[in-house]
């Protein structure tokens, strides 16, 4: 009896050993051939490839998984990237700018006082679950977004509070089967632009009722792609919407794969197992450009990265002179080499691509002596200890946060400021749970192409809190008045004036050390055609094509 056990066990072992030997042998001699033939099957003429598996599949590699596939409840770019394929808002951005074009709504007009917006809707749209799209569905969605505090983007953009969930939107009414009317409590200049944001994509009411709490796992919209499957931390699969009312997708399937490490993701791209990737390490740009199978595409710049000073904290950070001194003590030009050509030094919170940018402002420049003078004047000639909170993984506007933090840490030593670098993961960093920071890295990618979306969100006293928004806790009444005036003013020339002035005050008060505006690089296989990255950081894939 016993003997047999051992014999079985060991035959098994040796079988495994032999098997592995065979396999590794296969890997050694055969697999270059294999991977080539795999590639070849992908590269073959389009008809043949299609004949083979009948499908054009785009595999998109990214660093983080989506949190939820309900765009109204999340603010993370990775969720919105996917939902932008599934849901349509009333209007959408044009392919390469933040001007709007019709989507679910074909026409719109606004009353002279800027308070009533009327939208005419398409009458030929169905949701992915087969139900028809009508004006009532729009009303349903807006009512849902004002039903609780869970809908963060709505609250953000329309200023809802616990007392007034609707914010500046007084009511939304269906004035016909295919007509809706919005009544606002005050004019809002960016209103139309805001409605085009992916978080305001219209979801199927029936599906929301059906799935309840689990709707975020079963999203149903009207967009160019239909949700198929989500394996958390691994991949999300979407398929082409055959009944799409707009430009029907050229590809049959999109797979979003989560590969956290930028380097590993790039390796996958080189190996041909993904077609397109975000978050290319700056160091890898050159490699990608030299690779004859790859292309580097740059997303138009509409972002800013910065180091915010916690102005509400007692101590050095509350002193304007100290903040100015730190601005002087960091060599921004040198920091740019950590951006490897994808970043331009920033002097304003607004990116230069946006209207209202104040180019007359002169940046502080790098001047250690002047910095020391200011510090002495503020009573900190001997320096002090502070911390700098940073996040671990790269963001589009900051490719090397940990390294950049260390660089600043070292530079500030020259003016006797001792910096302790605290590295957090992204969720913790933006959750606002830790208010002990003196300085904090953060960045912002514009949502709707309006200066309000930068200045009001990031530097108005209304948004002073530790999580996102105004993490500098900068509370200037002057700036607030200017930004509020700009918000309710419909004339663009007037608005520009307000914003120019606001930037001047912000520059002087120095609540930030603005770092850079980047053109985030995207690497793709040469097979990817017609891919136009949008400045807001997300774009639907219906125009993109794969030449396989």
């Amino acid at each position, binding site marked *: 009896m016993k003997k047999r056990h051992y014999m079985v066990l060991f035959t098994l072992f040796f079988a495994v050993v032999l098997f592995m030997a065979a396999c590794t042998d296969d890997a050694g001699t055969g697999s270059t051939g294999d991977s080539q033939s795999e590639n070849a099957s992908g590269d073959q003429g389009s008809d043949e490839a299609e004949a083979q598996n009948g499908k054009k599949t785009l595999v998109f590699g990214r660093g983080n998984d989506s949190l939820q596939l309900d765009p109204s409840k999340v603010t993370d770019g990775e969720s919105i990237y996917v939902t932008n394929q599934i849901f349509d808002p009333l209007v959408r951005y044009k392919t390469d700018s933040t001007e709007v074009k019709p989507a679910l709504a074909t026409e719109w007009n606004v009353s002279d006082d800027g308070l009533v917006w009327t939208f005419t809707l398409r009458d030929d749209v169905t949701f992915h679950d087969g139900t028809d799209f009508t004006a009532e569905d729009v009303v349903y969605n807006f009512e849902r977004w004002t039903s609780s505090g869970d809908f963060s983007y709505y609250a953000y953009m329309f200023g809802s509070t616990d007392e007034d969930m609707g914010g500046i939107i007084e009511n939304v009414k269906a004035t016909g089967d295919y007509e809706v009317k919005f009544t606002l409590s005050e004019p809002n200049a960016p209103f139309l632009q805001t409605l085009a944001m992916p978080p305001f994509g219209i979801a199927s009411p029936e599906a929301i009722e059906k799935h309840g709490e689990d709707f975020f796992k079963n999203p149903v919209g009207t967009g160019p792609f239909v949700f198929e499957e989500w394996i958390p931390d691994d991949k999300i699969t979407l398929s082409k919407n055959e009944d799409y009312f707009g430009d029907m997708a050229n590809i049959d399937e999109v797979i979003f794969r989560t590969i956290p490490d930028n380097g590993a993701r790039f390796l996958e791209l080189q190996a041909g197992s993904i077609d397109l990737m975000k978050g290319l390490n700056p160091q890898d740009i050159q*490699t990608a450009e030299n690779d004859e199978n790859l292309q580097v595409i740059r997303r138009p710049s509409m972002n800013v990265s910065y180091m915010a000073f916690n102005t509400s904290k007692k101590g050095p950070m509350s002193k304007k002179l100290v903040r100015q001194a730190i601005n002087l003590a960091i060599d921004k030009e040198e*920091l740019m*080499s*950590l951006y490897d050509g994808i970043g331009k030094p920033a002097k304003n919170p607004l990116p230069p691509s946006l209207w209202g940018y104040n180019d007359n402002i002169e940046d502080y420049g790098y001047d250690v002596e002047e910095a020391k003078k200011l510090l002495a004047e503020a009573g900190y000639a001997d320096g002090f200890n502070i911390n700098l909170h940073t996040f*671990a993984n790269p963001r589009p506007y900051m490719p090397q946060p*940990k390294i950049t933090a260390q660089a600043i840490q070292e530079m500030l030593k020259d003016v006797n400021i001792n910096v302790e670098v605290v590295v957090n993961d992204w969720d913790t960093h933006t959750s606002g749970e830790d208010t002990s920071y003196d300085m904090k890295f953060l960045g912002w990618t514009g949502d709707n192409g309006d200066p309000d979306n930068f200045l009001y969100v990031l530097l108005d006293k209304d948004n002073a809190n530790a999580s996102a928004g105004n993490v500098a806790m900068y509370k200037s009444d002057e700036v607030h008045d200017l930004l509020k005036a700009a918000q309710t003013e419909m004339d663009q020339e007037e608005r520009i004036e307000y914003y120019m002035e606001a930037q001047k005050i912000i520059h002087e008060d120095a609540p930030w050390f603005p770092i850079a505006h980047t053109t985030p690089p995207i690497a793709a296989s040469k097979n990817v055609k017609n891919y136009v990255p949008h400045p807001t950081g997300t774009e639907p894939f219906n125009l993109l094509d794969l030449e396989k």
Partner: protein
Amino acid sequence: MSLQPNSITNPDLSETKNAKTAKPRSLWMDSLFHLLKSKTSLIGFCIIFILIVTAIFAPLIATHSPTEQSILNQYQTPSSEHWLGTDALGRDIFSRIIYGTRISIQIGVIAVGISMIIGVLLGSVAGYFGKWADQIIMRFVDILLAFPSILLAIALVAVLGPSLRNAMIAVGIIGIPQFARIIRSAVLSVKETEYIEAARAIGAKHGRTLMQHVLPNCIAPIIVQATLSVGTAILDAAGLSFLGLGAQPPTPEWGAMLSDGRAALQNAPWVITFPGLAIFFVVIGFNLFGDGLRDALDPKLKK
């Protein structure tokens, strides 16, 4: 990562050549002789010696400051100026590795110190008093052993907060069970000897007997276990730092250097190659020397 109890790491039960006849004093001489005769433990000794010398004279050996940056010189390949190249901030990798020896020794001393003090205390009390004290302590040790050690360390750092100090505490805690077990069995065997019984017979108090008579006779296994644990501790702490849960920037800790260098895997492989090699060699050193020490010092462990 963490090795299992050391009797298993290298239970070279084969070389039971040396006799266990010698008296205590000559046993030490005998051991020393034995230790130096073995080529492998000599290599181990040399690596540890080099490590300590490097740590002491780090400022003299290093060619640059470990934190001095020159961003324009980032990712330089190894050259006569930068022997092992530079990292993302243009810092000299050679100098950082040299200064990193200090961190490694710090980890070794503090983490193993924690395991040793608590482990010896628990082990000797369990072994000496036996009965319910033994039961309670050893069940507690069993519970600690029920967790995969590195996972327990990660959990501890998670609640304590990531820092080098907390990483050392966590690594120290997960090393306790091994000390406790080994010391317990050593104490058990010493306890039965005649002179302990004699000491008790003259009326020596328990504490005194334990401290003066029992523990000194358990020095050998303690030293062996401590040496082997240093290697494990360095490996575990480097792992924690690699995950961002240990040493924080700009500390030139080897695991943290690896984690910083990951982004440049393709373009600047030297950034991750050399710190890894440093960890590897130091751990080999402690393992070799620990194995040698065991063979030389502790015939009991070899039956």
